[in-house]
């Protein structure tokens, strides 16, 4: 994709390992249960599928802006970053570690289609364990941040996990939701949704719409330094998991549904939110886009 000059290498095109190393302070990453340990999925061999020595996720410790953090990074190039038994257990283990170590934040670099179908039942239970662990870490006052900038985006149960976090950072090119376009078309038919309509797919699940809704907090350019800087700014900033905070979020979500609930398409939602000429939004670069949606953007409380 050609685009504006970036401030650094592409986040989207980097491997999971490189993303995490670039987000953390240089040289600070220490991997836990790395590939040399050869802990692989016990379920793929029976299906004659190749295994990965890290089961598609890198986890470890490091520093961000000099503060200790824990980080995980899903490798979309291995089975679409999907969560199986070992992959999920590495994420859950990292979050359990956070309860003992109390880092300044846990960073989840998500790039995933959700549950790994080849390990279906173990996969969904693993996603549930990750979800509970994220919320337990938040309840302990440690912020958990989701970074979504990979080619798979963040879907299925992991799309729920992202929204259980304190905050979500997204690039314009990334996508987030629960049921992806192919799944909806396969389940409900092309009359409900045409997954080959690229423009519709990007405006529905892409970073711009997610930030306009308030589902994601920041729209970033697709570069490693942009993600690093945005994550650095959010370290140590927890959204409290209290009755007052969740009642505020409840009211905010209810208001958004009342205002935008009649929208059949993201364009309708942008119009209902008060954007003039919503058709031009997909074409705007992030700074111009931010100015165009300033009055319409929903910001999560």
């Amino acid at each position, binding site marked *: 994709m050609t685009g504006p000059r970036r401030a650094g290498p592409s986040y989207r095109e980097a491997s999971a390992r490189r993303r995490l190393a670039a987000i953390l302070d240089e040289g600070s990453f220490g991997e836990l249960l790395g590939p040399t340990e050869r802990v692989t999925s016990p379920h793929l061999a029976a299906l004659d599928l190749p295994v990965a020595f890290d089961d598609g996720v890198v986890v470890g410790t490091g520093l961000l802006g000099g503060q200790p953090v824990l980080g995980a990074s899903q490798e979309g190039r291995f089975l679409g970053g999907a969560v199986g038994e070992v992959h999920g257990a590495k994420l859950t283990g990292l979050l359990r*570690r956070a309860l003992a170590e109390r880092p300044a934040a846990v960073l989840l670099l998500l790039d995933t289609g959700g549950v790994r179908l080849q*390990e279906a039942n173990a996969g969904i239970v693993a996603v549930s364990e990750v979800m509970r662990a994220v919320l337990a870490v938040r309840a302990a006052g440690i912020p958990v941040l989701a970074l979504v900038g990979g080619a798979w985006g963040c879907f299925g149960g992991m799309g729920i996990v992202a929204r259980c976090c304190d905050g979500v950072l997204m690039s314009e090119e990334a996508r987030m939701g629960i*049921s992806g376009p192919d799944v909806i078309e396969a389940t409900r038919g092309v009359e409900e949704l045409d997954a080959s309509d690229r423009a519709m797919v990007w405006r529905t699940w892409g970073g711009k719409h997610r930030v306009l809704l308030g589902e994601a907090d920041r729209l970033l350019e697709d570069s490693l330094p942009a993600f690093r800087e945005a994550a650095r700014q959010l370290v140590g900033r927890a959204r409290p998991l209290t009755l007052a905070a969740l009642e505020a979020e409840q009211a905010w979500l209810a208001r958004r549904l009342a205002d935008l609930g009649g929208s059949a398409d*993201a364009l309708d939602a942008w119009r209902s939110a008060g954007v003039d000429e919503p058709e031009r939004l997909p074409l705007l670069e992030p700074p111009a886009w931010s100015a165009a949606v300033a009055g319409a953007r929903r910001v999560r409380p």
Partner: protein
Amino acid sequence: MSVDELLRQLFPGGHAVRREGDLLVGTGRSPAGEIAVLGLCDGVDVGVELALRLATEVLRVVRDHPGRPILTLVDTRGQRMSKRDEVLGLNGYLGHLAACVELARQAGHKIVALVHGQAASGSFLALGMMADEIHAVDGASLSVMNLPAMSKVTKIPLERLERLSRGSPVLAPGLANYVALGCVRSIWSAPLAAGLEAALARPVEPDRRARRGLERGGRTLAEPVARRVSVTTTHGE
């Protein structure tokens, strides 16, 4: 089992659970006291409105009835799959619901889930699977995807998936598989009230599903891998 029969068996002392469409909401009387009941029926697909409604009820119990145990009755095929739900950010509504259940746990509400029909996918994750204890009535149906659909998506022949499913709880739908994986703690049969009373009497424990999966032989790596990541030192230390 009909919903009326289910509630009668769970609460022989009586209940005030009303049905609003596919939502069940109210209270039941047990020897331990009043129980908040929040549930789904008819395998309903949970979209943005229902997810928000469920979250409202969880917050109402936390606000108005501190410490009251919560029983969630699960019967859902999953999240509603529609373009509109995605446009409106359904994952955010379900994430909020999960956070509300976590708040209830942190505030001291014991949370028990009972699968009485179907359980699958996003809505099971955000409500039922967030409970301290997950149980199922005999005959409940738990799944991610049926084998013919899985065969289509993964391009693995159906016959092969069926053969592998006989030796592994990981692939095929089925309650027994979810018990083996440690996800479902036990299967309740009549009288259901006994199962509920026992669950309410047990102290809350942290998430031990992986450990149960290990003990039951259905998930042998989840617990040891999580433990190793949680306690070992990093490379170079």
